[in-house]
């Protein structure tokens, strides 16, 4: 048996070998490079924490960190509640074609990434021409400028991110729900469990790994907020969303001020935040346990 085990170990390496090559070339080396940037100056000499200090002393840093924190809370709650909720609801739709069509329609905005949706949001958020203009006017907004007022931005970014991102996760969750044996659900039903109890006692625990994965990525994605403010900034010609998030600040350092080192420092900070959160979730959910 021990030779069998050794063979299995070798096979394990075989399965991951190609991936490891790509991981090193396009993941590890650039990341390592970027981390090295964060601790060196433009001449390549070791700079200690000077880049971190330079980033933190920028007049936009504190504000950007605050923006990101507010957005993160809104985004995580919205995503987890509605994605899991909608996936469960869709899974209970008895008509297959209806369920399939709904998933497709929910997903479509996912194809509209980045610059593809600038036009959509420019018109959608302008009460003068928006198909949802009545809604905006009901909230008391008469012009685009009022809609994109600074205090509305976290909600707008959550809306935009949810609109583009939720459909994909709904599909993932729906697929995951399908991997749960129907016997289990049936058993719960016979046991007298309602929809709510089935979801809570059977389906949610079995979705745990998927939800944890989504939360880890959504948390990191939220702290790295970039696309949504950039998009709104383009749609509003710079009125809203420029210099809004830490990641935008990082881009600014890297490509406007040609200061890759300070940019890397911001990136490393965001990475750390993402990793700490991921660590907490991974440990608490035993995410890495093999089967």
């Amino acid at each position, binding site marked *: 048996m021990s030779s069998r085990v050794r*063979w*299995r*170990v070798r*096979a394990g*390496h075989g*399965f991951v070998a*190609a*991936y490891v090559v*790509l*991981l090193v*070339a*396009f*993941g590890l080396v*650039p*990341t390592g490079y*970027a981390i090295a*940037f964060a601790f060196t100056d433009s001449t390549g000499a070791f700079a200690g924490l000077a880049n971190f200090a330079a980033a933190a002393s920028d007049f936009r840093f504190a504000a950007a960190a605050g923006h990101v924190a507010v957005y993160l809370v809104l985004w995580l709650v919205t995503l987890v509640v509605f994605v899991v909720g909608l996936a469960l*609801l869709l899974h209970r739709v*008895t008509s*297959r074609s209806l369920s399939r069509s709904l998933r*497709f*329609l*929910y997903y*479509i905005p996912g*194809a*509209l*990434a*980045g610059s*593809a949706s600038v036009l959509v949001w*420019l018109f959608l958020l302008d009460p003068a021409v928006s*198909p*949802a203009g009545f809604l905006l006017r009901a909230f008391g907004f008469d012009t685009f400028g009022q809609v994109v007022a600074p205090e509305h931005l976290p909600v707008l970014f959550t809306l935009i991110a949810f*609109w583009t991102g939720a*459909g994909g996760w709904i599909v993932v969750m729906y*697929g*995951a729900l399908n*991997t749960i*044996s*129907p016997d*289990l659900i049936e058993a719960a039903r016979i046991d007298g469990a309602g*929809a709510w109890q*089935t979801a809570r006692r059977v389906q949610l*625990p*079995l979705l745990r*790994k998927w939800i944890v*994965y989504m939360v880890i990525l959504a948390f990191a994605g939220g702290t*790295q907020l*970039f696309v949504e403010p950039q998009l709104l900034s*383009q749609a509003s010609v710079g009125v809203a969303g420029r210099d809004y998030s830490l*990641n935008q600040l*990082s881009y600014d350092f890297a490509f406007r001020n040609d200061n*890759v080192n300070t*940019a890397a420092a*911001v990136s490393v900070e965001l990475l750390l935040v*993402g*990793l700490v959160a*991921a660590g907490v979730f991974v440990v608490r*959910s035993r995410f*890495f346990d093999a*089967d």
Partner: protein
Amino acid sequence: MPTDTRRSAPPLHPAAAPRPATSRPHGKARSPLAALVLGFFLLFFALPVLWLVLAATKTDDQLVHGDPLSFGSWQALRANWEALTAFQDGAILVWLGNSALYAFLALVITLCVAIPAGYGLAKTEFRGRNTLLVVTLIVMLMPNATLVVPLFLELNAVGLIGSMWSVILPYSFYPFGVYLAYIFFTTALPTELLDAARLDGCSEFGVFRRVALPLAAPVIALVGFFGFVANWTNYFLPYVLLPTSGQFPVQVGLGELLNNVPQFNPTVGELAVQRPQLALATLLAITPVLLVFLFSQRFLVAGMLAGATKE
């Protein structure tokens, strides 16, 4: 979390009732509240898209003055198409072709790499397995603002700058997909099934190919689909890495079109792109993604256990 039920054996109800013929739970699916919620989100997700589709059929004037959800005219659609394809002598078609080439080649590599890797991480024990999982997570969580410079230097060092491989190879590294495959194989593929195949004398690779792979259709579709979309919609990497506009994928092309719309860039001259043309270009750019979605959706939801396929 008290429940750790990854197996198909129900821990709470070992004496499950005889299986009913249908696999679908008979819930109270027709509750009006559920319908209301699903309907609301349908509007939320689809209404802007409907607007975009209609926008492509209008003139710029109609876009501003007409009803937002009205149909323009076929003539306007045709005129928009002609104006769009006239932009830089049909650049939009070149961009679409580039996107298709890059996304497809990268997709093939991604699938060949990510599915076995996810399987290996989930179903085999080897030294470095946890390290690999952690490292993958780290690079996945790294913000990419600063990754572009190292990537550029690296690709330059191996002489790939200017070639299409400078974007295809980084595209094909898709840690997100590896994790999807990893979670799928850990949660949905019973180890007993693999052990049985091993007892039958299958090699490790044979177990993967004969047992795991045929059951992995949902996750192959999932990784394939998300990988394709990620490649298709990637903006920044090709924007920075590719040297000439003739090599740009459509996503970067859309950015270029956007910069030629007077409303976004007042300084453009008479060759300006009108907003309905941009809407049409956007529709062209997202159509392949939607087609791939429709195609892969058939596999996405296929159930896990052999024979228990739903839908």
